[in-house]
């Protein structure tokens, strides 16, 4: 590991990770946010920048969580949390909702992941071949179908293993799908050269980042 002590730099918080991804979403995009940290992204897109959020259970134009006394019991997102509907929102059935995904109509999907490889492979649904009851949900549809896939995740596992790898050891969700990764240490694009570092947490050097990353990192050309 790097000689840099942890105190020398400040990793991005989860809220900051979500905020950074939100800043990169332009008005007019149709966006699906995965369960977990990616869901937080919508909190950082201002209402006057019209980004249309899709939830795979047939909700297009989803708004923030309701006040407790304004809950609509039939209005939930893919994480089965109560949400609201923005003016202009619409409902559809599951096959139509997944047509939006699989038919290439979504501009962006942001998922969490266990591992991302430098060729864009993503593993985010099972941690071993013998997982107790595997559960894939809509992850494979989203990864294969959206126009672009970003990943929002911690840079390393709790015990310090790099989640940016040369080859995923966990079962794949989709090959070659990820275009960009936001971690608590950096923002990286997945390119033909592999991972290209766009920005890093304040105080972190490129060498420090490489020391915490199994895959080879590149600076922008």
């Amino acid at each position, binding site marked *: 590991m790097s000689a840099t002590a942890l105190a020398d730099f400040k990793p991005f918080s989860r809220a900051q990770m979500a905020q950074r991804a939100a800043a990169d979403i332009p008005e007019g995009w149709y966006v699906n946010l995965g369960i977990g940290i990616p869901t937080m992204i919508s909190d950082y897109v201002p209402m006057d920048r019209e980004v249309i959020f899709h*939830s*795979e*259970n*047939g*909700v297009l134009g989803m708004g923030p969580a309701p006040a407790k006394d304004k*809950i*609509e*019991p*039939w*209005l*939930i997102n893919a994480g*089965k949390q109560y949400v609201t*509907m923005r003016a202009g929102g619409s*409902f*559809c*059935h*599951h*096959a139509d*909702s*997944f047509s939006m*995904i*699989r038919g290439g109509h979504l501009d962006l999907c942001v998922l969490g992941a266990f591992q991302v490889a430098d060729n864009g492979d993503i593993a985010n649904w099972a941690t071993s071949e013998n997982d*107790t*009851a*595997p*559960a*894939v*949900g*809509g*992850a*494979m*549809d989203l990864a*294969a*179908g959206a126009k672009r896939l970003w990943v929002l995740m911690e840079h390393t596992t709790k015990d310090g293993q790099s989640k940016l790898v040369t080859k995923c050891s966990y*079962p*794949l*969700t*989709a*090959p*070659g799908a990820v275009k960009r990764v936001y971690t608590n240490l950096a923002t990286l694009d997945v390119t033909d050269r592999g991972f290209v570092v766009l920005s890093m947490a304040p105080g972190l050097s490129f060498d420090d980042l490489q020391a915490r990353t199994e895959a080879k990192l590149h600076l922008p050309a």
Partner: protein
Amino acid sequence: MINKIVQSMADTMAGIKDGSVVLLGGFGAVGQPNALIDGLIEQGATNLTVACNNAGVGHTGLARLMELGRVSKIVCSFPRSSDPVVFETLYRAGKIELEIVPQGTLAERMRAAGAGVPAFFTATGVGTKMAVGKEHREIDGRIYILEQALKGDVGLVEAWEADRWGNLTYKQAGRNFNPVIAMASALTLVQSQHVRELGDIDPDHIVTPGIFVDRVLHVPYGDPSGF
């Protein structure tokens, strides 16, 4: 006079055979036909294959049906839930077969069955465990796998409004799998929160035309948050 409205749960469930493939609507508790699942528990059919997005919560509804040993196979995308104890126990004991299907593929397999499409190519699952043993084909430079239509012997659907011809509307995200299940099932059974007079549902608002529906039971049970 056509009248698909039935008056009792026993009439709704009549004729469901052992070994049936049952397509079950709902995404979590929302849009899930809980009364019909209880009716199926009462009715007694066994050795069922159940296709549903989730695999039951706690010890009620689908979880209860499984706990009673009536389900031999689950076809679903996401068997985990807030309390998946019944499914997990049966799965670990090897007492239930699991076919895991990406959620969009599950919905599309039902729609295909309803539309008379026996199989279709999709990019979802290519390069993953889901593609093992499936036919691959390159079309316009991209690789796809062949997925089979999923036909139901019985479909259990929750609707918001119904009329005696079986026309249906849904409430918000309660729509989810219900319309494709109605299409894909040989015998489509509906529990509806409201029953309207014929002609009172605006034809522009009908989501599932009655041609896809066989029986409707009026179940004004309230909102899904109690499940």
